């Protein structure tokens, strides 16, 4: 099967993730959508690696996962702390600073 289709899939996933970021209010979900975008990138990397026939893409995918993990750590920390302060995880409530 033509690997290019997987590229389309990756693009689709990325778009879904991006859309999610824009649509969802809950910080956690927004964050998960970002993770989804990262994973879409991973897929793209792997597919390209497959097409080019070299390992770089796959290696990068591993790096990306690690980064994503690190992001989870930091992100959750921040989100949790703000949740404990405001008792809400809605990103729209965090809008004290504007204009």
């Amino acid at each position: 099967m033509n690997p290019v289709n997987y590229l389309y899939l990756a693009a689709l996933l990325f778009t879904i993730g991006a859309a999610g970021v824009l649509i969802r209010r809950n910080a956690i979900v927004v964050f998960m959508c970002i993770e989804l975008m990262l994973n879409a990138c991973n897929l793209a990397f792997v597919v390209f690696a497959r097409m080019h026939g070299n390992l770089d893409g796959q290696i990068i995918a591993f790096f990306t996962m690690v980064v994503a993990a690190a992001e989870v750590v930091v992100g959750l920390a921040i989100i949790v702390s703000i949740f404990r302060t405001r008792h809400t995880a809605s990103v729209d409530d965090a809008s004290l600073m504007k204009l």
Partner: protein
Amino acid sequence: MSSVASVHSLWTVAADMPGRIPAPHIEYAQLAPTLIVLGAAVVGVLIEAFLPRRSRYYAQLLLSVVALAAAFAAVIGLAAGGFGSAKAHIAAMGAIAVDGPALFLQGTILLVSLIAVFTFAERRLDPAAHGNRVDSFAAQAAAVPGGKAEQAAVKAGFTTTEVFPIVLFAIGGMLVFPAANDLLTLFIALEVFSLPLYILCALARRQRLLSQESAVKYFLLGAFSSAFLLFGVALLYGYAGTVTYSGIAEVISDGAKQIDPALAGTMGNDVLLLIGSALVVMGLLFKVGAVPFHMWTPDVYQGAPTPVTGFMAAATKVAAFGALLRLLYVVLPGLRWDWRPVMWGVAILTMLGGAIVAITQTDIKRMLAYSSIAHAGFILAGVIATSENGISSVLFYLGAYSFVTLGAFAVVTLVRDAGGEATQLSKWAGLGRRSPLVAAVFAIFLLAFAGIPLTSGFTGKFAVFKAAAESGAGWLVVVGVLSSAIAAFFYIRVIVLMFFNEPKAEGPTVAVPSPLTTTAIAFGVVVTLVLGLAPQYFLHLAGQASVFIR
């Protein structure tokens, strides 16, 4: 189908290779600056783990200062060793470039960070809580604001000494960022310096709600943009089959010629190239805070602890612009005719947008945020020049600007009332009467921002506009001067406020800082004036360092 088969054969062939992968060869000496800083960061973590609370502050401070100084010395050493010019080459298996721009920017970042660390360590400004001096960071970031745990922490005199290792990590990332020579390293470095910054933003002692909000905004948007960047990387990888700058540049330069027809679908596919590079550039533009990717800047600058804001405003810009320069000059020179017009637009938007919106700001930190956006626009004008003059002018501007910014934010930390820092512009009325010296210093910084002659700001602005004009971007220069005329307005407004308005009865007081902050501010003033009056040496330095290794 045949093409797929051939690809498969390629793939399997590649699959037999693992045995032959050579052990990487790393030039530790040339990576010394980065390694020192990151090492120190690790040590800092250990200190947090094993030293008693009392002694942590001093140990951390000492460690950070020593580490940064050593790293700076290492940079100087490398530069003196000719790695900036003659011996410039690509280290660590093509991952990191050691060349003029890299060293210059690393030096700048390290110096800025050193000064910034001084402001981090400042403990005289906030009134002592329960008898122990505190800095501008939360007693215990994890504790709920106003909750029992926090009060207990305050009573116990806790302070978040973790900021030192955290900031060291960020610095480490920033050092790599402009030197990164392949997209993966670029991405990793980006994350390495972004994640600590997200945390730092959340650590303010006063107005923690704002601080946390800024952190979450910064984090979400940052992650969002880095996802875009990563997707761009993926596409570029798809286009070139490699992520090394030189590799991609090569593929771009000789197009899709001697490429296996099997890969015609991806390799050399300009759509991949264009979209990919656009996305990567966007990721970097986000970091430099260029319109339309600037939305985070005001909120984050306002909410973050002021020392952190200063650090971000200065160091992040340097690192990000370094990376942007390298990307555009090393990877995409072949695409110049595609990205220059786009960058023209971005630069104009950024200059005008930042300047215009800043006019109506009422919070000093937000105003400085917008001014930083406008300045990003000015620097972009230099980036667009696509000439050695362009590079050197950008390098110079970054150096000049970052110190002014640090100094300005350091002054902001001094003006306080009951609620901590008095960042409401209206509260600054009559400051010139209350404490002329501080007001005068701030005025100097503002004039430098405004690009008044005899300050570093003017020299920098002149350099970038000159480079732009030489590269034929005359109208960009005109827009630039117009927007700096607009920008002048709000800088002047602050001066009017400070000097020509009667001080209010319940106005803020100016805290007397410790030598740490004083040094930071003094250094800022000195650099501002020296670069304004006798910039030649530094211009020359920047000129020397304006050649990228490919």
